[in-house]
């Protein structure tokens, strides 16, 4: 579909439908952001982060709606969204487990930890557990090398209430603790 043949009317209704995909809350936060920037494009990354905060990830529809709302082209927004590691363009579970694969953590056992996590969750790196609850994504050096090996665990979904934005927890892992911790998270997620 391009402006070479689609008629104006169709485009307008499509645009309206798209706009409705974003929640009032999302729109108001994004509008606040837009006011801060000389150009709407400047707010790209933050706006994507807002959408992700409420949805856990940024779907094709959500990104199209966001582009429409911000008045920038889809390709520009997508270009930015796909560049950054922490904008998720595929679904993730409400709980993200980020074991650190930085060098200090690797020296102190990251590989084993990651193996155990994979076994416990029965998934591969980058996948989400069968119950849809936990996604495993290793991240580079988390900046806690003195506590290595570490893992960042976060619950990415906020309920939209002020002050309850995503909680995250940096845990210092030794392999024995791992199973306990996983257990704990499985329970809380369910």
């Amino acid at each position, binding site marked *: 579909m*391009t402006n*070479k043949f689609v008629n*104006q*009317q169709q485009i307008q209704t499509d645009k309206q439908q798209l706009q409705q995909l974003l929640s009032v809350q999302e729109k108001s936060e994004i509008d606040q952001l837009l006011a801060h920037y*000389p*150009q709407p494009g400047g707010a790209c990354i933050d706006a994507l982060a807002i959408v992700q905060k409420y949805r856990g990830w940024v779907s094709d529809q959500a990104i199209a709606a966001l582009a429409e709302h911000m008045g920038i082209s*889809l*390709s520009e927004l997508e*270009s930015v969204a796909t*560049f950054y590691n922490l904008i998720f363009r595929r679904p993730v579970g409400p709980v993200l487990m980020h074991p650190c694969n930085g060098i200090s953590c690797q020296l102190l056992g990251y590989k084993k930890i990651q193996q155990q996590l994979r076994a416990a969750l029965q998934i591969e790196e980058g996948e989400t557990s069968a119950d849809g609850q936990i996604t495993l994504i290793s991240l580079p050096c988390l900046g806690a090398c003195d506590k290595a090996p570490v893992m960042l665990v976060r619950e990415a979904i906020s309920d939209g209430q002020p002050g309850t934005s995503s909680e995250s927890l940096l845990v210092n892992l030794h392999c024995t603790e791992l199973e306990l911790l996983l257990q704990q998270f499985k329970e809380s997620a369910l």
Partner: protein
Amino acid sequence: MPEINIDGKTYQVTAGKNLLQACQELKLQLPYFCWHPALDSVGSCRQCAVLMFQNDQDTRGRITMACMTAVSDGQRFSIQAGKAQKFRQLCIEATMTSHPHDCPVCEEAGECHLQDMTLISGHIERRFQGPKRTHKNQYLGPFINHEMNRCIACYRCVRYYRDYSGGTDLNVFSSRNNVFFGRAQAGVLESEFSGNLAEVCPTGVFTDKTYSAHYSRKWDLQSAPAVCVHCSIGCNTFPAERNGILRRITNRYHPQINGYFLCDRGRFGYDFVNHAQRTEHAWQRNNSSQTTEQLNSQRAQDSFSSYLKNTEQLLAIGSSRSSLENNFCLQSLVGAENFYSDNSAQLETQLQQLLDHYRNVQPSSDLNSLEASDTVLLIGADVTQSAPRIALSIRQMIKNAGIAKAATLGVAYWSAAEVQNIRQQLKSPLHIISSHSTRLDDIARSIDNNHPHQQLALINEICSCFSKDKSNAAQSPADDDSIAAKAKAIYRDLLQAEKPFIVTGIHPGQPVELLLASLKLSAMLYQHNKQAGLICAVPWANSLGLALLTDRQQNIDTVLQRLEMRTVKTLVILETDLYRYCSTQKMHKLLADVENIIVLDHLITATGEQADLLLPSSSFAEQHGSWVNYEARLQHSLKCFAAASQRRPAYQWLTANTPLQTIIKDLSGVAECLRELPSLYSIKSDDFHVARKTVRESGRTALHSFINIKDIQPDADLDSNYQHSQEGLASNLHNNQSPAYIWSPHWNSSESLNQFQDSESGAIQGAHSGLLLFARRQTANSCVTQKQPFDSVKESSADSQNVLRVLPFEHIFADEELSRYVEHIGQLAPADCIRINTAQAQRLGLIANQLLDYSFVTADGSALESTEPASTTALPLTIDDSIAAGVALLPTLLLQRAPASVVCWLSLASAEESSDA
């Protein structure tokens, strides 16, 4: 001129340029990918690495990118040094790690910049044994193929598409060695200039899909220096043929016109030449026996002569899409008094006015100077649709403010990314006066979409700023929305600019007054500032050429009148489809009364179907011809391949084979300005011919081997110095003849252009730049003598809300006759509809998508006598709020059928209602 030392030799180089540019001018072989002469330097591919020495004592040197290094006096470099060579080798090896070994099936192969650079860089062995990264390809529409695995991530495509042509739907996604170049979702590329991707991409990621449909290797093609026939800009092209089929069009660099880029209509609109509806034979209708018979050439010629014996009630129509020679021969044959143009009276008036303006007031400017200008006022022309290449130039002009700012920080214009970072949102001013939104809105400083009478008021107001006390006008603040304030703002920008430009256009359905006012404004500006420029697009490829030959009284409106009055017995029509000028039923009726209809055309148009005698003419690709573009630049276009069967250039039918040289001589006597015409045509030499085919042609014999293994005798070209064979001068020799293709040792792709230029952005060696019929010197003492001819464009005097000023909705793929015969172009033409704004629709009680009947009315709303309903089929309504109040847009082709001599007004009615009535 700075002096630099490269590998022990001292060279003088052009100041202000970078080392890569300098090396190209010196014809030193230095590979590159991300640099492009029109896209400049970003330094990402690292392929142009050389060694740079700090001083005379420095023996080690350090690697530096030539494209990112400004030349300055006393520098010392080495291209040959082992360290630099090794680095370039490693770099190309890295570039090639994921590139597939699919050259045998890749359409780029044989003219691939990547192949060339790989060889120049000395990479011969792939050490990398790991898996290659792979991507999925996208459907990008009918013009462009996508084969992402071949990508070497030079970023040229996105830099061209986004930064140069202003497209928004192509981009780079993801990161690291996984970068993907394409659209966010598969779909037709939106840019009107997407075809250039095929030339910009150094390898086979983006290739010409229309070429794929009848692909041939570059070395099997024959080509010629030609001129595009799809609009009035006159871009230079290389059409390329094999075996009687025109296979593709590529860009032929012309520094003042198209530079490196064509529009998609020009590049992909060629397939009409191969159209199934073409005729190769002459046909004659026998009315008594109700049959059509095929004639041999001699009989066709005889028959034609016998039709013309009686010149009483003879009428001939020339063609804006045919060459000057063809039109001239027709005019000479039938006599000036019987020769008519294919323009409406309204168009004809405007074209003559424009010629007068060029002659007496101010010559036209070229696109290169438009790109160098610093303020543009664009009036009433949707140039992206009507003369697309202009829009591309305006997009470059916008950048000049940023380039100037960068210069103050010591950053050279060719540091593309740095200039962009400094520029940010800073733009040279573009003001648009129009009736509806256009594709340049995104870069405009002001957009005034208004009814033509308000447009005119605004232009007149700007004119009056020039005549008023200047300082006063320039100072008072523009703080309100009044016409005076808008005019002042525009006036101020025009006044402050070093090189202000007025850009406008002549097109069907446009109010004459607007053009006159624009020309007047341009004249005032020019009087004030001799650097000021004027660009005025005209409808078709040879509109101005035809206007040079005709008188403004003899136009298509008078043709129709005479047909209606039944005073035409014999009608000769040159390459024109009369059905574009009125409704089908009416034209059927009018032609039914004409005794002898003779049509010369290369396509069987609706008009051709009515012919009593149809003579097959050859297309632009099969004939030599001259064309006068919008700036009154006379250009010579060369025959690419010999016409098949009975096809021959119209001028041959019309003169019964008078030699071309004679025609040219006669033609040059028609007007003072045409005197130099013969110089355009290269002298035929017995010694040195220029080859149309490359010496590397592989299979001349094999092509017909299933019939005969003997070589087929190539056609002789009696009219030019070019051979239809590989015999003759190699195209890269400097010989005052434009090469028929671009190809030179080491450089197999279109990038080999740099081997044909004396300097970067210089013309192709040997290529004629065309003749400017009204050169600057002739009009240097111009003055504004013109009295203001019109004060206003009529407003509707009717009380009825239902009298709307109708203006054309132009479209790059819908309006032009020849390209419309091309399937893919037709596909992309929008569906016909009527466009008005919401308020207008509400007032008329109409809703979007409703089917409407429309009729042309007079300004007071009364119906026109003797015209049946204009619409044969009802059209849906489209709401577009950018359209000014009181204005309706109708597709150009439908508007062109408005009854003659009526200023166009439209009345709308729901289709159901009218069918009730």
